[in-house]
């Protein structure tokens, strides 16, 4: 019985809910493109690919195959783009004092649609929302479906300034595809934490600027996390060939606290050895008014990836999240190895090994192994 409970807990925690896949920042620079929007319709990357992105799926990312929708079986009209993400995973975990666990589960099932007419576009993501999970008594079928992203965008032409409104993550941080990363949790970018936002952005020769104001979903049963109101700004400049440095800031007034974050994100592509270094460092002040307490927090992340396109990426990385710099023994840290194989267009196999520890438990780390099969039509 204890084993069954442990299996259930790990599976439910790690992924039966849809995992909001974001961008693959490793493809930036390594594919010869200096911004996410070169391949993605969304300025923050992730989700639907544009025509150029689909051509890269077949020609640059994978060992072979047609990157078109459904492997080129059908080409939608120019005003329509369709796509999706389906992931299944198997996981094993070792934790001191707990039963070893092994589980397999559906991780994500999302469909994407983007409709364009002139400078206007509507982009919608719809998918299963933990269909294998129980819900509170009285919950109807709608409680098992969700749309974590729906956006109306105005952009006169590709590369022009844009304005958008709807539900989406504001541009911030490294935007890893891994929803379980410490950085995404700390920045309110965990599963189903997308706020409603009004955003704008522009880009020029070697720079891009994005800003958003955001508010929580008016339907609490559709959004998890801090449910804050606030604003973000993200400004990035390319620095020489294959490198970019960004500054970012975020203000969030939540129901429980007020947070102010400033930070930096850096990306550096070394063409010779095919190495990509990505790093993020953020400092945050959190004011918990009801407790009359201010906490200073730190987030750090770094990843070094050997990009061997087409077909293979191997990365090592680490993250640290300290929710209270003055309090001894509360830091969370992880170190991981990622092997990502792209054997055929639309298919990814991701192997992940992670060791994670919490301050004061450094001698009792969690060990996690994950195998993920990802199909994106």
């Amino acid at each position, binding site marked *: 019985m204890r084993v069954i409970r442990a299996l259930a807990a790990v599976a439910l925690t790690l992924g039966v809910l849809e995992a909001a896949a974001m961008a693959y920042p490793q493809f930036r620079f390594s594919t010869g493109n200096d911004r996410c929007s070169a391949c993605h319709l969304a300025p923050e990357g992730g989700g639907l690919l544009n025509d150029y992105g689909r051509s890269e799926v077949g020609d640059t990312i994978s060992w072979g195959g047609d990157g078109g929708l459904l492997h080129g079986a059908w080409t939608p009209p120019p005003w329509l783009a369709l796509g999706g993400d389906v992931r299944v995973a198997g996981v094993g975990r070792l*934790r001191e004092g707990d039963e070893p666990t092994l589980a397999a589960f559906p991780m994500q099932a999302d469909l994407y649609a983007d409709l364009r007419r002139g400078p206007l576009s509507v982009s919608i993501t719809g998918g299963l929302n933990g269909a294998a999970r129980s819900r509170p008594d009285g919950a109807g079928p709608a409680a098992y479906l969700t749309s974590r992203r729906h956006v109306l965008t105005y952009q006169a032409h590709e590369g022009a300034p844009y304005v958008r409104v709807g539900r989406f993550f504001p541009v911030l941080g490294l935007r890893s595809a891994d929803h379980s990363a410490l950085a995404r949790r700390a920045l309110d970018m965990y599963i189903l934490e997308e706020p409603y936002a009004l955003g704008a952005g522009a880009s020029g020769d070697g720079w891009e600027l994005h800003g958003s104001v955001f508010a929580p979903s008016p339907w609490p049963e559709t959004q998890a996390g801090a449910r804050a109101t606030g604003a973000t700004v993200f400004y990035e400049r390319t620095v020489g060939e294959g490198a970019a440095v960004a500054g970012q800031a975020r203000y969030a007034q939540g129901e429980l606290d007020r947070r102010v974050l400033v930070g930096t994100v850096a990306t550096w592509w070394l063409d010779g050895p095919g190495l990509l270094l990505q790093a993020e460092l953020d400092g945050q002040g959190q004011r918990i008014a009801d407790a009359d307490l201010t906490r200073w927090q730190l987030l750090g992340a770094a990843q070094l990836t050997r990009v061997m396109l087409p077909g293979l990426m191997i990365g090592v990385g680490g993250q640290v999240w300290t929710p209270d*710099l003055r309090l001894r023994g509360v830091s969370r840290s992880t170190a991981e190895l990622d092997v990502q194989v792209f054997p055929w267009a639309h298919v990814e196999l991701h192997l992940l090994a992670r060791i994670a520890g919490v301050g004061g438990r450094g001698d009792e780390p969690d060990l996690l192994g994950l195998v993920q099969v990802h199909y994106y039509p």
Partner: protein
Amino acid sequence: MGSGSLPAVLALAVVGGCVSGADRPAEWAYIHAAILAPNCATAACHSAITVQSGLDLSTAESAYQSLLRRPCGSSEPPADERGVNVDPGHPETSALMTWLRGDGNPTMPPDLPLAPVEIDLIERWILEGARCE
């Protein structure tokens, strides 16, 4: 945003924290906002979306109600003891402590456990009566 200087903060980042759990308030406003909400009220677990095991820890009110089965401010014991996870004054008989310490395998939260200093703060809050004000 309170007092403190950037050099001091950066120094702390390098050498680690300098105060213990005794310097943090064992009060509900802190316990919920600093420990329970960020670590437990995620979408897949004890959020308003999924309410796993009947626990909605997303707001201070819903979390208190979920854990003690009575609203904040009420001194009346719950009519039904089933589902009570916090026994005020008695951490040793509080189910919440069993889960956090891993005595009721698996340890909660299942993705990454709480730090011992955070568990000790929750224990102190229960020991001091588990008040919500």
